[in-house]
């Protein structure tokens, strides 16, 4: 829940951002599983997916008889990659329930109990589990305006994403700043298990602990977490790092782990043009655009969250202070081939100039080109089925380690007034992606269009684990990725 609160704080601060691979802006494409390149036609929003679509129906260059169109779309998208919301909430709950701040103070003064050691090792284990690349929360929102006049298009896309990713960093961190800590740890008892012995051996060999100290730590780890958890190499590495850092300046409570919030707001403003290279057979198009980007970031440590202070205002201020604006020129290309009456093949490439976006925070924000293939088949005059697939993988600039390579399939029943759409989308580049079902409706009367579309994965997510003190029970949400949008527009022939 705290993560959700932080995200809301960001949104309210105005640091909205966009950084998805190839975000779906319009409701029709959303309902068709994101297969926008395949279904791009003469509608206003189609130029976003494939600028060549501006030449659909053109018999010659500069053919204005193909019509006039405009569209206005807006959407929201929330995606928790892996069970990050629950994991982070569980950690903050453990900080509070185990009274970690007090435990740390006790350790600094030489008062170490077996229960405290075992509770703190649970926190260490949970922190460590967040260290997988790509874990995080992505929140996106945006709006789009497209105007088509014959083969020319004008567009303004304003999009935003906020990425919230966990950071686990035990470097230079110790259990306490008291170098005699290990002497105060209660002794081990009984015969060690194989996993326990293995952990002890690692602590002796890599952290230089004595056999007695290593045995004590391994014993409490085994009692707290069991054999499987303490055999995990990541956990072993964390224990080695913490043992090495004990007696140093940074104790465990003040470890620099937490969540890193990155925001990237972008506005694309540009023009598109399409040419019927071989009219009615092969169209090509280009979009030229100026992209104005605004980045921001804020790191929020677990200790800061646990402090009990109202940090909302601080976060807002920091995000404002960390803002940087930059401008990049870029362009998209597209081609559309109609070899058969019932078949359309398309290819579109977006943001062909790789962009390094100015960013004050650590690391960098980078956006690479994307190339997508689309194919659409029609039957009986009113059924259309299409598929899109990204040819490249993209890494999210706001959620490092989260890669995307989307595939989307859509089915449209193109009835005279009502349009019924269903689809499915999946990110092939992220192993924990659960796919998304898509659906939507369209209404088209005399060229006036209203579309609604939504996508949702059917993977239930635990966004609030049961609290350790029993005051709150587990709460779940039916989906780890939901989005919805609406488009209104007008499509008229001249």
């Amino acid at each position, binding site marked *: 829940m705290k993560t959700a609160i932080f995200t809301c704080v960001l949104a309210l601060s105005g640091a909205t951002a966009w950084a998805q691979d190839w975000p779906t802006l319009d409701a029709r494409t959303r309902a068709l599983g994101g297969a926008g390149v395949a279904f791009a036609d003469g509608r206003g929003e189609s130029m976003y997916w494939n600028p060549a679509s501006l030449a659909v129906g053109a018999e010659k260059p500069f053919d204005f008889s193909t019509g006039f169109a405009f569209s206005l779309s807006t959407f929201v998208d929330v995606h928790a990659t892996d069970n990050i919301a629950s994991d982070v909430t569980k950690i903050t709950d453990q900080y509070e329930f185990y009274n970690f701040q007090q435990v740390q103070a006790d350790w600094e003064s030489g008062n170490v109990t077996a229960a405290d050691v075992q509770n703190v090792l649970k926190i260490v284990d949970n922190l460590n589990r967040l260290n997988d690349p790509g874990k995080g929360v992505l929140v996106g929102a945006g709006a789009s305006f497209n105007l088509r006049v014959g083969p020319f298009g004008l567009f303004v896309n304003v999009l935003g994403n906020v990425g919230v990713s966990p950071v686990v960093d035990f470097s230079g961190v110790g259990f306490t700043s008291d170098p005699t800590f290990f002497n105060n740890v209660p002794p081990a008892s009984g015969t060690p298990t194989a996993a326990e012995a293995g952990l002890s051996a690692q602590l002796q060999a890599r952290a230089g602990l004595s056999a007695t100290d290593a045995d004590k730590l391994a014993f409490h780890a085994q009692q707290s977490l069991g054999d499987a958890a303490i055999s995990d190499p990541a956990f072993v590495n964390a224990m080695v790092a913490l043992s090495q850092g004990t007696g140093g300046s940074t104790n465990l409570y003040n470890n620099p782990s937490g969540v890193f919030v990155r925001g990237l707001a972008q506005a694309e403003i540009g023009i598109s043009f399409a040419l019927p290279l*071989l*009219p*009615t057979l092969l169209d090509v198009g280009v979009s030229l655009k100026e992209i104005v980007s605004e980045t921001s970031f804020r790191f929020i440590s677990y200790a800061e969250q646990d402090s009990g202070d109202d940090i909302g205002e601080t976060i807002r201020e920091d995000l404002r202070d960390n803002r940087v604006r930059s401008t990049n020129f870029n362009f998209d290309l597209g081609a559309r081939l109609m070899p058969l009456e019932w078949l359309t093949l398309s290819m579109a490439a977006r943001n062909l100039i790789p962009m390094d976006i100015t960013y004050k925070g650590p690391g960098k924000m980078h956006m690479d080109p994307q190339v997508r293939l689309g194919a659409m088949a029609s039957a009986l005059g009113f059924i259309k089925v299409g598929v899109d697939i990204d040819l490249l993988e993209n890494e999210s600039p706001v959620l490092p380690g989260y890669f995307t390579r989307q595939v989307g399939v859509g089915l449209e029943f193109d009835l005279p007034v009502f349009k019924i759409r269903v689809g499915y989308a999946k990110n092939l580049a992220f192993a924990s992606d659960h796919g998304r079902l898509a659906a939507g409706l369209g209404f088209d009367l005399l060229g006036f269009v209203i579309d609604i579309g939504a996508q949702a994965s059917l993977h239930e997510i635990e966004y609030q684990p049961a609290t350790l003190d029993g005051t709150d029970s587990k709460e779940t949400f039916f989906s780890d990725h939901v989005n919805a949008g609406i488009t209104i527009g007008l499509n*008229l022939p001249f």
Partner: protein
Amino acid sequence: MKKLILLLPLLASCGSPRAMSWVEEPTEPPGTDQARVIVFRDSFRNATKPYAFLNDEEVLGFSLVGTWFEVRCTPGEHFFVLHGVGSAGVRARLEAGKTYFLRVDSVPKLLHLELRLTPIVPGMDEFEKIFSVLVDLDRTEPIDTALAAYAEEHAEDLEAAISRLKTDDYEQCPVLGPDAGR
């Protein structure tokens, strides 16, 4: 906004005037004093655009994708013209009592679309299978008001196109001879 809403039906109807009407009745064979010409368009390409079909300067009908229509002509020489984004002509010499076939299609060329009006003549595979082709198409017939409106609106275009076909491009126009009918 209110005015815009009221204008929507008008705007929507601007680009799609009804050019032909669909008919179900079977066609009669040509009489002894006339020839029949069937114009069909079985190619899907440029499906949203009708092409005008003329006998010399007279607009006789519009060729729509997936349809055919017939025209009755006096025996003798005629110059048939197809007009749309481009133009094509056929030099015809018709015999009474016979039925002739013309196929309409368009071919994508670099930066332009070439319209074709192709006589279907004995020896061509299509000639033997013509009725199986036509049975898959819908029959249409012209709407007089649409013909008149088109002729008036495109008078200058048509005049220029026909003039060019009859002079510069005349020799390239295919021939529909009297023996090409059945």
